[in-house]
């Protein structure tokens, strides 16, 4: 199937942005976005058109606590959302261009890495890619007979005051089962939970936790979900 044909490219981008492209098709599309700049650009075109629809909604001011939690997570101090002094604008175009260039370079490197992973890694029976909102790969997870291997991508921006925890979501509706903490960089091996052979797994989830992992055995803040693909 040629994803670069204009009509097909637009149809997929539109449904991706709308949200009706789901499950495996959505993940495959995210991977295509990493590989083809044309597909990324088509997606942006649709995002900028369709997301203007959101202006139809009446604004709803979130409670103050939302900003407080954001500033806490980012480690800010004393930045109230109200009563802010006007920003004095500075010249910053050089840094801006440099940062944009760096981001583009990082995206290109990622695309190359992804293609290598797809073509070289043929042995593991199951894999999953945990992706961020903008389809950037954050962790690559491979599961074989005994072990879960997790590689953190360079895209991951580790948080010093939190850990990331991996969870298995079973189809039978039981509470998510912790599989262990994810690496913030490099590679880590986790023991494969015995339940893998006993229940049907519908998703893996990644949560943000206090250092050391979930305090109560349940995910605190679910950040991402992904599904296992059998190769």
């Amino acid at each position, binding site marked *: 199937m040629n994803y670069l044909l204009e009509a097909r490219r*637009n*149809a997929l981008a*539109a*449904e991706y942005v*709308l*949200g*009706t492209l*789901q499950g495996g098709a959505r993940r495959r599309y995210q991977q295509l976005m990493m590989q083809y700049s044309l597909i990324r650009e088509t997606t*942006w*075109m*649709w*995002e*900028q*058109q369709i*997301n*203007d*629809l*959101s*202006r*139809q*909604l*009446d*604004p*709803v*001011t*979130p*409670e103050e*606590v*939302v*900003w407080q*939690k*954001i*500033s806490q*997570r*980012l480690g*800010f101090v004393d*930045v109230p*959302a*109200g009563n*802010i*002094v006007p*920003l004095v*604008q*500075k010249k*910053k175009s050089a*840094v801006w261009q440099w940062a*944009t260039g760096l*981001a583009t370079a990082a995206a290109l490197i990622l695309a190359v890495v992804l293609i290598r992973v797809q073509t070289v890694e043929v042995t593991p029976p199951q894999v999953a890619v945990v992706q*961020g*909102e*903008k389809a950037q790969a954050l962790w690559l997870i491979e599961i074989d007979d005994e072990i879960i291997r997790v590689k953190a991508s360079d895209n991951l921006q580790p948080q010093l005051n939190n850990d990331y925890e991996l969870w298995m*979501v079973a189809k039978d*509706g039981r509470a*998510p089962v912790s599989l262990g903490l994810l690496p913030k960089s490099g590679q880590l091996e986790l023991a494969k939970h015995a339940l893998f052979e006993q229940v049907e797994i*519908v*998703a893996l*989830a990644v949560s943000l936790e206090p250092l050391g992992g979930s305090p109560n055995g349940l995910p605190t803040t*679910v*950040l991402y*979900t992904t599904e296992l693909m059998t190769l």
Partner: protein
Amino acid sequence: MEHEEHLKLLQATAESNQEAFAQLYEATSAQMYAVSLKMLKRKEWAEEAVQEAYVKIWHNASEYQTGKGTVLTWMVSIVRYRALDMLRYHKVRGESELFEGDGDSLFNPDGLAEQVPEKLAECIDELDSEQRQAIHLAYFNGLSHGEVGLHLQSPLGTIKSWIRRGLQSLQRCLSI
């Protein structure tokens, strides 16, 4: 004007200027929260999606390019994708009500709100009413094809076709 103001704040945010980021939050959070609340319905989930989105925006401010639309549409994309992920997660866990039926209020016969760009409003108005309803339910409520079908009491194939043709019409009308 709005876009220029947001861009100035986002550029300063990319240089780790916390005050600029706080001002960007002030200027945009009510719109972002409205999008998130409409999709996720529950206040605590909607707040979580907004928090995640702004954390992401702080870290990725330098990745914005004007080719990605206005700063606000770029930010709305981030919160919508986050809300879609959360919605799917909670549905898998059986924690989310399928749909609470508040979408009808969106189908205002008098057309779209003034804030929606004129061309987009015009193109949406030109759609068949079924196509418009199906696209609205998917966009604002994050519904899948199947869920739109349940709500509009139409078969899956029909819904897929309404959405596909509706999007094709929008593409032509908006010259995408």
